[in-house]
């Protein structure tokens, strides 16, 4: 998995390429943890995300909780397979998916 960050004022875009699973979710958690300060809009760009597991979902949920307090979080470029996971787990109701 590779993570690319792009900061534009208080808007942070995080693009994830590859797999977000048991092995890589802790890295994603670490990257997000050190980036929240002063951010009012967090965009997760999943265009390159191939695989998502519950371990990744937990990190996304954590980020959503933090951003609920300091602004908003948007997930964009979600492919069909990843969207299916958001649907079956009920995450579509919690997240803002564009």
């Amino acid at each position, binding site marked *: 998995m590779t993570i690319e960050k792009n900061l534009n004022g208080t808007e942070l875009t995080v693009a994830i390429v590859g797999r977000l699973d*048991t092995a890589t979710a802790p890295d994603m958690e670490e990257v997000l943890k050190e980036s929240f300060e002063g951010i009012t809009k967090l965009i997760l760009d999943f265009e390159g995300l191939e695989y998502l*597991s519950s*371990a990744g979902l937990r990190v996304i949920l954590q980020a959503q909780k933090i951003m609920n307090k300091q602004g908003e979080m948007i997930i964009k470029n979600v492919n069909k*397979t990843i969207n299916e996971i958001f649907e*079956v787990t009920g995450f579509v109701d919690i997240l803002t998916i564009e």
Partner: protein
Amino acid sequence: MIKINHLRKEYANITPLKDVNVHIHKGDVISIIGPSGTGKSTLIRCINMLETPTSGSIFVGNECITDKKCNINKIRQKMGMVFQSFNLFNHMNIIENIMAAPMDLLGKSKQDAYDEGMELLRTVGLADKAFNYPDELSGGQKQRVAIARALAMEPEIILLDEPTSALDPTMVGEVQAVIKDLAKKGLTLMIVTHEMHFAREIANRVFYMDEGGVYEDGTPEEIFDNPKREKTIRFIKHLKVFENLITSKDFDFIGFNTSLEEFGRRNQVPQKTIYRAQSVFEELGVQCILPKLDKEFRLNVAFEYSQEEETLSMSMKYDGEHFDVRETPNIISFAIAENASKSIEYAEIQEDGFTNLVTVKIK
């Protein structure tokens, strides 16, 4: 007719036969099938003592042929052997090849050996080749001669070691037809073969060999339509298997997924199916089952892919207390796994120390 007890054959680096115990009855036509290297040929070569068993005994009738005092040449006269590579004498013509042994070993007159040899050549459809030399015959014809030569010794049993595997595909049928005729005549036959259709059609018994012995013994219907044991099922259904035993919670998760992907790619499993398999393993195995297991545990994960049916299934066997993964409190993981599966089943088992079995058909 033949009783094999605790037969073992060891070579320097390998033990193809660990413990073979079977009875072969008069008139049995036995197809011996199984993966390469499982001792099929070694077994029939031990039966006529072309290989000396390391231990165990083989009785032919009342004679123990593994006994050093046994006159093996006398016993071999009752057993014909047909090899993959024909083993005809190239300096003799066809009828001479057939006449040699009955004259030398059975003391038949030249005329009798000739008359009977010609009759046998007629049986295998090669009377017109009697005065040709082996080099002038096709592979299929040579093998038919080899069968006629074995029959000339009036054997009670014929052992055939992959009789068609060296043949051009166009010649397989003619040799199989001759062998089928022998089976109809009531001769006792043991045939090592990789041709499943033939193995099924000709035999009244099938030995599936694996793990150093006759792993499963049954009628063709039992072995081909309703195999009972795991490895027989995998072999019969052409299942490609990826298996991994996990014994630590810090196991190499990335390595596991990489190996699973390579297995999938090697066997033309669609990428989407591989992702689903990885998802089911991660959600059920890693997220639901692993946290429930004791400090010392065994979790055996096996994926089986049927190229014929294009289906992938996964089984997870684990020890410890009974835990039905379908009752996991981790509903998110279970929802993801369920979405990637056609079915998720659970059973309590007692097998090699495993107490739980989860089987999943991947979507």
